[in-house]
């Protein structure tokens, strides 16, 4: 199961419809401070079902919706889509036979999140279930966010235990 593309619009600093394509085994993401690199990681965790605004560096979930810049007005909704190549059938269950899988999450200012898999509306739980067993998820160790390394370094023995329990 390969990640082919992330399509974002209205999510944090990605106000316009933007596609991030991954076409190689090792892909580097570069750019000046504050240009939006870590926002891409937030987008991936959000669409996989992240429910805590604080873990997405915001005060409320609405903080993920583009809230304006010196030249642009705030928008009314955020949308992120992950497109996977599942031709090897790595995702188990109902979706195993699909060669491409699209997972989407949309949020309006009314606070309601709308999840879709291959354009069919589903619940958040369905997204979590689909990823179960693949090693992916909003808090999986496949995403090492900025600052996580120094958090691990400074953690006390009981905190390290909690890390391991989450992975179990």
């Amino acid at each position, binding site marked *: 199961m390969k990640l082919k593309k992330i399509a974002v619009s209205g999510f944090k600093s990605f*106000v316009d419809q933007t596609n991030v394509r991954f076409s190689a085994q090792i892909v580097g993401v*570069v750019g*000046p401070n504050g240009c939006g690199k870590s926002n891409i990681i937030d987008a991936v965790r959000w669409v996989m079902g992240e429910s805590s605004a604080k873990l997405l560096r915001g005060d409320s979930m609405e903080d993920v919706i583009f809230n304006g*810049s010196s030249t642009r007005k705030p928008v009314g909704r955020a949308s992120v889509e992950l497109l996977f190549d599942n031709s090897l059938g790595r995702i188990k269950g109902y979706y195993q036979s699909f060669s491409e899988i699209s997972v989407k999450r949309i949020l309006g200012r009314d606070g309601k999140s709308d999840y879709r898999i291959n354009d069919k509306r589903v619940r958040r739980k369905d997204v979590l279930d689909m990823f179960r067993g693949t090693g992916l998820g909003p808090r999986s160790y496949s995403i090492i966010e900025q600052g996580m390394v120094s958090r691990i370094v400074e953690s006390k023995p009981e905190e390290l235990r909690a890390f391991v329990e989450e992975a179990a």
Partner: protein
Amino acid sequence: TRVRFEETYTILNKNFSNYFPKLFGGGKASLSLTSDDWLTTGITVLAQPPGKRNSTIHLLSGGEKALTAVSLLFGLFELNPAPFCIMDEVDAPLDDANVDRFCDTLRSLSQHAQIIVITHNKITMQAANNLIGVTMNEPGVSRIVSVDVERAIELVES
């Protein structure tokens, strides 16, 4: 869940003590438990960079701590290998020799998973097969541009 924790801890310890010498170019490291009771015990990290005495993670230098934490994170990743792994500036505190070994490890991880690495380090940029540039030419608005390594080094300097 006790058995599960014990199993996870044992595998993680093996993975961690595997990655540590690869990233440090030698030395050894392991996890240890703070008590005999599996249900309440905490976990400490013992690390011995090459040529040094064994110590807890707190006596290490900034870069040594970071590299030890990266070894642990790679060990955790291997517990549940996902189709991709995304890393956000984990190479920032490392010197060039450690970044080289970090890149070697990325290459071996990339045999089984897609690796996406956010970085300002030019050595890591060169280790990637493909680079994605993120710019904010219009203030506050992020866009994606495709870049090659030379262009990327320019982009970071702009």
